[in-house]
């Protein structure tokens, strides 16, 4: 499903190159559950952005279901983001003036789905994350855990094949963090490919496969059960 070969991402800072990713090789099969760990600044977010087509590699190749993402145009990348990838962010990124239901509807609005279908699917998605009764609430009226569950509903409402979560529990207490992780894992059990960036060793260990980054390089992948 996902295949990175020698992927680099270099920023110019004050005329000097900063290698956020310095040659990453990674392969992820459909339906896998992968955690990505590493110290701050090691390139975890950059990697996730590239996987989700929010950013392009400066070197190497990224194939998503066989297609070379580097060769896709802006519009095709937008379509990949819309249909194939769902994002969950540490800081939620909910639109504050919209209700929970409207936030979940947003990707379908952008996709041009008819209104009735949007409402129906958004309600179903909110129901699936246990927030049916919070539909008319605005983000500020929701707890952190509830907000993140709204984000998950929004990320999966268009049925993507990959879910990318960048420190989804970073702003949550451990109880609601566990709830969110449990929700992500249940989606993975239904077949969604799940990649979770996390600082939390305990959460990272739950994944069947762990990728460890250091200074923009993969320094180890551990299969299930390994220390």
């Amino acid at each position, binding site marked *: 499903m996902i295949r990175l070969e020698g992927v680099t991402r270099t920023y110019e800072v004050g005329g000097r190159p900063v290698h956020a990713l310095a040659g990453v090789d990674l392969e992820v099969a459909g339906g896998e559950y992968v955690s990505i760990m590493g110290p701050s600044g090691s390139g975890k977010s950059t990697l996730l952005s590239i996987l989700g087509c*929010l950013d392009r590699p400066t070197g190497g190749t990224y194939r998503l279901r066989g297609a070379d993402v580097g060769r896709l145009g802006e519009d095709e990348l*937008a379509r990949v*983001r819309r*249909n194939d990838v769902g994002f969950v*962010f540490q800081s939620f990124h909910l639109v504050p*003036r919209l209700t929970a239901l409207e936030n979940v509807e947003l990707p379908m609005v952008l996709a041009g789905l008819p209104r009735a279908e949007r409402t129906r699917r958004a309600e179903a998605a909110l129901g699936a994350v246990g927030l049916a009764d919070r539909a008319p609430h605005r983000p500020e009226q929701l707890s952190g855990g509830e907000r993140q569950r709204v984000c998950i509903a929004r990320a999966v409402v268009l049925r993507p094949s990959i879910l990318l979560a960048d420190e989804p529990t970073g702003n949550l207490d451990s109880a609601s963090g566990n709830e969110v992780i449990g929700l992500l894992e249940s989606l993975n059990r239904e077949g969604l490919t799940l990649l979770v960036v996390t600082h939390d060793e305990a959460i990272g260990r739950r994944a069947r496969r762990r990728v460890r980054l250091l200074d923009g390089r993969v320094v180890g992948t551990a299969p299930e059960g390994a220390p």
Partner: protein
Amino acid sequence: MSLLDVLRFAGTALVGHRLRTGLSLLGVAVGVAAVILLTSLGEGARRYVTGEFALMGSNLLIVVPGKTETTGTLPLVGGTTHDLTLADVEALERRVSGVVRAAGLTVGSATARAGELSRDVTVAGTTAEWKPLRRLTLRAGQFLPAGRPEEAPRVCVVGARVASELFPGRNPLGELLRLGDERFRVIGVLTARGVSLGLDLDEVVLVPAVQALRMFDRTSLFRVLVEMRHPADLAPGKTSVLHVLKERHGGEEDVTVFTQDAVVSTLGTILGMLTLVLGGIAAVSLAVAGVGIMNVMLVSVSERTREVGLLLALGAARRQVLRLFLAEAALLSTAGGAAGLLIGLGGARAVRALFPAFPVAPPAWAVAAAVALSVAVGLVFGVLPARQAARLEPVAALARR
């Protein structure tokens, strides 16, 4: 993404910032209202003036003693300037073809007395022809009698206010009115009409021209008005008037002839220009409002950078982001334009209610232009901020604090 969805999303963003939205809306509204009100006033002035001239009667030639060179305003006097007399008027009526009627006019002021009461009035000396020429109507009695002007009797027609103030509660017809040392019998009362062409017809006393000339010790008329049958008669009529008077004045061209339509159309053109200039000045305020919209939209884009990042992450094409912010600017200016339209039309209506004599009317072209301009302003000044939003890089936009 349907247009309705675009507008709805843009609408939620505007509603989210009531004060800011309200203020930039106000800017556009003021601009549009100003265009409508100022052009209404200009158009009102044009209608007022041309309406006044229409009341004076159409197809008029106006003869003024003294020769006005086109290059200057001083009458060029070659020898003596001959008087413009009642005999001249008669000759014009007889000899210029296409003439319907002609009337001489002389104007002065005097104190009018009736019994114990007195007031200052404007005395206009003229002939019977003046009534149809100026489209005058009488409230009572009759106008100055026709017949040989040199033998006109000592009678007068009084304006409405003169009648009510000098003959309160009485019928002035048949009463005597003293103008200076002379006594005139009142034979008619004018219908109230107010100021027309600089003459307050309610404060006037009309007497036969020959009496007025004697009273003011004058020999020359102040003006002669010649009404032609047809607009096409004006140009040959003018030549003919000049010719007849030159012959009668010893071969000297010592009068100036204006055609009324030339005066009207010149004034009309000037006032039309004025309207346009007023509209243009007001349109500048619309441009200023546009800059205001741009400002608000730039703030909005920079405030909502993270939201743009989110939209891109959710699969929005850059085109869609552009459209969303453009729609927001267009909504702002359109709503402002609609508010301005209501204010402008309401204001014009209020002015008309306060000053019924002044025909304030918003010209259709100005209303259409103001509304179209307000929408255009939103789109034009919204482009820059919208492009800025559409050009954001998703990762950087999402990371913005």
